């Protein structure tokens, strides 16, 4: 950093003294500041501002955005081979076989996931109103807590696979909870939703799709 050089070119600096500044001098110092940033080593001081601006843009968009769906590379591909113990009983398994022969929903959730708690009543409604079975993968959770949670809040799932270390969920391409998959009779993933399954999404996207399958 050659602070000394800059100082010499500009003469006594208005910026560095605490004295009153007149407009002419202020303009000069602004010009000099612009020159200064052609010097690479000083760009580092701009970094915090740039990071903050990027963050602020995200926060601004966050104020107005709703959940959206995301195409997954797994769509129209068979469900990855998996085998999980069920939440209720460690002797029982939840695997590809359970998903064959009928159209089903697979919901990935966890008790620590606050968004999932928002989604839960909607899943309860669907379980009551629709014959489509909902299966679940309990992602990186505590077994006892999850069981207790389902007991006290109601269990919309036909079967819950317990994925304590999250390895099976990785194969399913899970970004974060909650996520919901639609699997057809042949065990092929036809649809994936990241985020809360809202009644609108259910009515306008998933139900029409299921009717076609």
């Amino acid at each position, binding site marked *: 950093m050659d602070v000394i050089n800059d100082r010499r070119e500009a003469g006594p600096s208005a*910026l560095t003294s605490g004295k*009153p500044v007149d407009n002419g001098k202020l303009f000069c110092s602004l010009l000099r500041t612009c020159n200064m940033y052609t010097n690479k080593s000083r760009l580092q001081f701009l970094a915090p501002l740039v990071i903050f601006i990027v963050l602020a843009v995200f926060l*601004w968009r966050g*104020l107005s955005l709703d959940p959206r769906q995301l195409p997954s590379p797994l769509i129209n591909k068979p469900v990855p081979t998996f085998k999980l113990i069920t939440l209720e009983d460690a002797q029982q398994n939840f695997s590809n076989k359970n998903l064959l022969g009928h159209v089903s929903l697979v919901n990935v959730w966890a008790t620590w996931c606050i*968004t999932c708690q928002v989604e839960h009543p909607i899943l309860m409604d669907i379980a009551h109103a629709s014959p489509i079975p909902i299966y679940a993968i309990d992602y990186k959770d505590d077994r006892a807590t999850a069981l*207790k949670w389902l007991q006290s809040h109601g269990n919309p799932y036909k079967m819950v696979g317990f994925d304590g270390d999250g390895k099976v969920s990785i194969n399913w391409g899970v*970004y974060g909870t909650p996520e919901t998959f639609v699997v057809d009779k042949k065990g092929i993933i036809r649809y994936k939703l990241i985020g809360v399954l809202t009644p609108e999404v259910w009515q306008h996207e998933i139900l029409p799709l299921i009717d076609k399958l």
Partner: protein
Amino acid sequence: MIPELGYFALILALGMALIQAIFPLLGIWRDKMSWIVLAKPVALGQFLFLVLSFFCLIYAFVTDDFSVAYVAQNSNTQLPLLYKVAAVWGAHEGSVLLWVTILGFWTALVAVFSKKIPLQMHARVLAVLGFISSGFLLFLITTSSPFRRLLLNTPAQGIDLNPLLQDPGLASHPPMLYMGYVGFSVAFAFAIAALLTNKVDAAWARWMRPWTIAAWCFLTLGITLGSWWAYRVLGWGGWWFWDPVENASFLPWLAGTALIHSLLVTEKRGSFKSWTLLLAICVFSLSLVGTFLVRSGVLVSVHAFANDPARGKFLLLFLAVVIGCGLLLYALRAPFIKGGSYFSLLSRETFLLANNVLLIVAMTTILLGTLYPLIIDALGLGNISVGPPYFNAVFVPLMIPLLFLMGVGPLCYWREMNLKVLLMRLLYPAIIAVFLSLLLLLMTTDKIPVMVFIGLALACWVILVTVKSMLLKGWPLSFNHIGMALAHIGIAVCVIGITMTSYYKLERDVRMQPGDITTVGAYDFKFMGLTNLQGPNYTGLIADFQVTHKDQFVTLLHAQKRLYTAQQIPDTRAAIDAGIFRDLYVALGDPLNNNAWAVRIYYKPFVRWIWWGGLLMVLGGICALKNSISKRYIN
């Protein structure tokens, strides 16, 4: 009449805040002494009006004035008096008023304790504080006035305060937290004033340090109280959930801890100047971002507050102006700040730098985890949750080197240290720490989890080295040194608590009928039966549990299930038998068939140490504060 008076006082306070923000700076520019000296009386006047407004709201709550919308939504005639007062900050509008009033309080303190600060510097600091206050007052008056009336149809009865918030822990938790958040505004104001004058020196660091430590103490106390409240009231027996709102308070704490250490170097050695400035701006920015996250509803959280996008937009714009201007000023001026004095690779400066880097990396990873769902959403990729698995995985590995370095730093000299001398100093504490923790573990269990050993050994290490640093320093110790020692030991105590309770806790969720016995660890819990409960604004049941240990009576626990009558909200109050080495925790769940109940029984070893550690840190902060205040502001 009184609510209108409160509203009017807010408007007057806004006027004064605007004067405080504009006139001192104009005065410095135009060289008008009378405008510069205006800052102090106006700051005091602003505080007076804010206090008046705050008391008007308290009055409205205490007198059950349900014509005021905010009171009607958050109070009830049957609410006990203590909670009527606490309900003032139980929801959005009132907590913003509390925020501004606390800012007024800090500003008034800065205005009064200014003897040794040059007049221009002082005026600039007050102007920055005035600007922040104007923004928040404008926010309060335009979007979230707590004095709005329901004149046409005044309800006869209020809706009541959220039952979860009816607890002594909550009555004190937000004010403490806000004292911390807002207190960092003073550090921010000092940083901006220093950037405006380009005068960053040891004297500046000396003025700023007590304010930073004071704010940090309050924030630490606030977080500790919040954790204790969550443990007792939420009924899950957890003490930290990595919830976005908790993270919002933890982020400024991490950055603030870094700032305290970096300020120390700036004060003693004149180094790290621009880094200290950046940290001061960052800490307050994080406090503001925290406020924004809680108030705007961009993130889903268990902390239920009414949210409104218009409020979010206002806050975000204000945030962008304050933080953006601060960072822009930093980008323009920081390159001119001259570097500090020389230090070698092996010196206390290096270790403090490493401490700062680790703390800031930890802060950034938590910020990332907290905002990741939001960023994914903003990019149109969906709406997801990031939970404890992420935070534990990234946070714990960063704390291990931090704790290790915490032991080395205090035994190192400033400027330069001989490696051999340093190693000799560290040798015995290291050996004793490893053996002591192994011995402790072998005495209690036969298999030793690696993480428990690491946690215990590091905690012993920090305590031993801190004690050694006191011995090396010799009597009499300065308050600064005692403060450092207490705070570091506090961290160690906290680490012991977290390690032990995470690995050795026992949790049973069982179905119990009266007469049943459940064994958890070495304790037998017998469900004695249920009795009815009648509270001031709730009814409920008390379940009695007799606890025995090897047939010896230990205690009788009374777990409560309450139903708050006004809103018909059920609430669980866990019964806790607190002890130095373990807590026994019983919470009553939902009724099942055949007179049976779901019961949660927890055995939580060392859980209290977490909060004791927090209190020790606060005590350490107060010690350090005593020294710096009496040196810099009073004599």
